[in-house]
């Protein structure tokens, strides 16, 4: 069965410091992979996605993620965190289907809450 693990429930970093949020997935083949961010009272916003090709993916707001097949990981990184990055971050996996899309549903991890110290 597909699953997503985000090992860190809560991370605190200082403003300006680098950030890495971990994500491991379980899936029988190469999946679609995503990172979403959720601010309080807001919906989920897509930061970046991996479908195929280059394993280093660039996203919005200065985030990037690297797909490592051998480690079944898709960790999110940012070189310098801003106070406005404080939010909850969700990693998600979607199943591939032959027509190029997915079967429709995403499997989400439980999320990592990021706090930023001034």
């Amino acid at each position: 069965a597909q699953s997503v693990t985000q090992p860190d429930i809560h991370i605190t970093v200082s403003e300006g410091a680098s950030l890495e949020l971990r994500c491991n997935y379980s899936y029988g083949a190469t999946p679609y992979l995503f990172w979403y961010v959720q601010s309080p009272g807001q919906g989920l916003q897509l930061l970046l996605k991996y479908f195929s090709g280059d394993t280093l993916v660039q996203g919005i707001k200065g985030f990037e993620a690297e797909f490592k097949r051998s480690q079944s990981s898709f960790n999110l990184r940012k070189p310098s965190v801003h106070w406005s990055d404080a939010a909850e971050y969700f990693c998600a996996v979607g199943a591939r289907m032959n027509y190029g899309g997915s079967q429709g549903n995403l499997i989400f991890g439980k999320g990592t809450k990021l706090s930023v110290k001034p």
Partner: protein
Amino acid sequence: GAGVSQSPRYKVAKRGQDVALRCDPISGHVSLFWYQQALGQGPEFLTYFQNEAQLDKSGLPSDRFFAERPEGSVSTLKIQRTQQEDSAVYLCASSGFYGGRLQNTEAFFGQGTRLTVV
């Protein structure tokens, strides 16, 4: 509208009451999803529509949950005889065609409806 719109934003229901949650997807989006997000958890898939057809309802937790999308645009999630364990944020997402292919994984989320059952 520009994004996925959900109403109401907040709903308080007495145990045993029926509720209806509405989702207005992005205009022209073929696919529509409902997710349930319990406190401190990631979103969990409930059901998926392609146009008016409900192709997957494997995530609906009980027969008290019912979803419809009769004209292939607006969708309603109905919960009958609400229970305290139904308290959660209910998220709606939609996606469409990209590059001529149905890319269900490019999901855009609404802000959600927070349901509290007392």
